[in-house]
């Protein structure tokens, strides 16, 4: 049997075991271990397992993940999401569909201190959904907009997906972070556009909220200045090369902690809850990362990524068609497989292909994050929809998925805009020093 055939069998077995429900990280490690043992020697495979796990768990570059996750968890447990929502309301509240627009703006703001989609959706769902219900918003619009806006968490820096992509492809995390800023703003604007159009067609879907005074507006905005300062300090520090990514995450987490304590919004219980949340998210991510490394070692010796890259590079079709195909694969894969697992599984295979056809690695990373965002709101495995469903227990899942669909169109438009104008993503990174 040739190495390529063994590799393909390995991938098929991996998918079968995935779908049987074994945890993703465990599956990758197990299939990678067995494959490596078969391809090289059992001794080599067994030794690889312990060494790979040690290498990943003790890696300084990976400590950026717990630091940024900690920052988001402290922000969540110290009520920053509520202040962001209040600020958004003071600006958009009295417009038709204004509460949904407020949700988008608040999610974009929260995304600037939190790097995960489900944390953003959970944080904002608990605040925004009761408000929208109070004003009799359509259930599909209310829940769909929270699920979709939560996905901004991985596009606007910091972002766990950018970190993982950067580590897998050896790209600068600072440059990737900064590349997500403009696309994030554009996508937030597109989401607001979707809400405007829906409410123009169905005015009863999103009735206007009550008016706010200038004093309320000023109070609302002043409540989020700290988020802006923190974002500029952390991401700006990374942009200017003051901090390494781990230091930036540490500075962000410490800053969020100080703000929470100074405002007396972070209790001891809240802090412990943030520690626990961070541990569980970090552990889940790092187990997948370690599993992916072991699986990646197996796949590398089968030479599948190189063969695929050479094949795609020689195809008589334009690069845009290759990109379209990759986006399509992510769209379908994202329907069934968790976003992070999909990235871990596919990046080692698709990244060489993307380089072979001449794509910019930073731009490709932004596109990958955008298509990942689609995956978190598409049925049947749209994580954010399940998160929102946990908050709005009486709304059927189908209604939330239906509500998220118009926002899926917005993400597809954002992908198209980025394919047509890659500079939106590549302009800021070209100025960075780190």
């Amino acid at each position, binding site marked *: 049997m040739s190495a390529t055939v063994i590799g393909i069998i390995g991938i098929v077995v991996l998918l079968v*075991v*995935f*779908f*049987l*429900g*074994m*945890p*993703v*990280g*465990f599956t990758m*490690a*197990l299939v990678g*271990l067995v494959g490596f043992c078969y391809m090289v020697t059992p001794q080599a495979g*067994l*030794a690889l*397992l*312990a*060494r790979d*796990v*040690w290498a990943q*768990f*003790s*890696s*300084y570059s*990976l*400590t950026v993940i*717990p*630091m940024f996750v*900690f920052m988001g968890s402290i922000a969540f447990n110290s009520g920053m999401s509520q202040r962001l929502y209040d600020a958004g309301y003071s600006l958009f509240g009295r417009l038709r569909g204004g509460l949904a627009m407020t949700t988008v703006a608040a999610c974009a703001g929260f995304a600037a201190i939190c790097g995960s989609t489900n944390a953003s959706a959970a944080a904002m769902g608990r605040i925004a959904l009761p408000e929208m219900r109070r004003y009799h918003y359509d259930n599909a619009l209310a829940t769909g907009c929270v699920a979709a806006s939560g996905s901004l968490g991985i596009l606007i820096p910091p972002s766990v997906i950018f970190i993982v992509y950067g580590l897998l492809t050896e790209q600068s995390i600072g440059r990737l972070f900064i590349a997500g800023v403009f696309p994030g703003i554009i996508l937030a604007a597109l989401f607001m556009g979707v809400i405007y159009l829906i409410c123009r067609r169905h005015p009863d879907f999103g009735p206007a909220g009550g008016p706010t005074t200038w004093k309320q507006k000023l109070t609302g905005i002043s409540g989020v200045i700290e988020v802006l300062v923190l974002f500029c300090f952390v991401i700006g520090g990374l942009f200017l090369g*003051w*901090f390494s990514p*781990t*230091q930036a*995450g*540490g*500075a962000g*987490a*410490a800053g969020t902690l100080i703000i929470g304590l100074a405002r007396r919004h972070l209790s001891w219980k809240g802090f*412990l809850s943030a*520690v*626990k949340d*961070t*541990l*569980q*998210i*970090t*552990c*889940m991510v*790092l*187990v*997948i990362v370690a599993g992916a490394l072991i699986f990646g070692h197996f796949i590398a010796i089968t030479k599948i990524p190189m063969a695929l890259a050479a094949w795609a590079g020689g195809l008589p079709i334009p690069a845009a068609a290759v990109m379209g195909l990759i986006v399509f694969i992510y769209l379908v894969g994202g329907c*069934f*497989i*968790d976003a*992070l*697992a999909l990235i871990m599984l596919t990046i080692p295979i698709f990244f060489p292909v993307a380089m072979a056809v001449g794509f910019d690695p930073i731009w490709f990373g932004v596109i990958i994050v955008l298509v990942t965002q689609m995956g978190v709101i598409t049925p*049947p*495995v749209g994580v954010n929809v399940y998160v929102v469903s946990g908050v709005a227990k009486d709304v059927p899942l189908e209604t939330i998925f239906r509500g998220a669909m118009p926002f899926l169109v917005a993400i597809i438009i954002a992908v198209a805009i980025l394919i047509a104008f890659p500079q939106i993503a590549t302009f800021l990174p070209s100025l960075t020093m780190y």
Partner: protein
Amino acid sequence: MERFEKFTTRFSNWLNWIAGIALVGMLGLTVVDIVGAKFFTWPVPGAVEVTGFLSVVAIAFAIAYTQVLHGHVRVEFFTMRASPRVQGIIGAIIWLLSFALFAVLAWQSYKFGRVLQISGEVSPTEEIPFYPFVYGIAFACIPVCLVLVVEFLKSVAMAVKR
């Protein structure tokens, strides 16, 4: 069975708190390092390697409790639709495979730790030996295996239930 499950949960939770202390330690060390390096031109010596060691504790010691909370991402969409008996059989297989993986990891990490201990390998700046942390990974696999045994027994019970 209930007592065994209670014990594994408590054991895992206890290790999770050790992981929590390591996490807070990582944050504290990073902050002291930043302040030292940016304001006093005196970064903490060996901050990078100590952060890496703390990260081993924070991650490895949290694996078991994360499994207790079912926090390790898995695709449940297809198995959810199967009958309880089929779900039980599939569950028994996947938890047995997972148990085998962590048992092998414990054994291999112990062996790797022995190699590092005998060769006397230490970190470059602070000369901290690597092996206690590698043994730590081997130790952290024990509660993971116990939690996976609980999952396996639950699945078997589900499969044989009339």
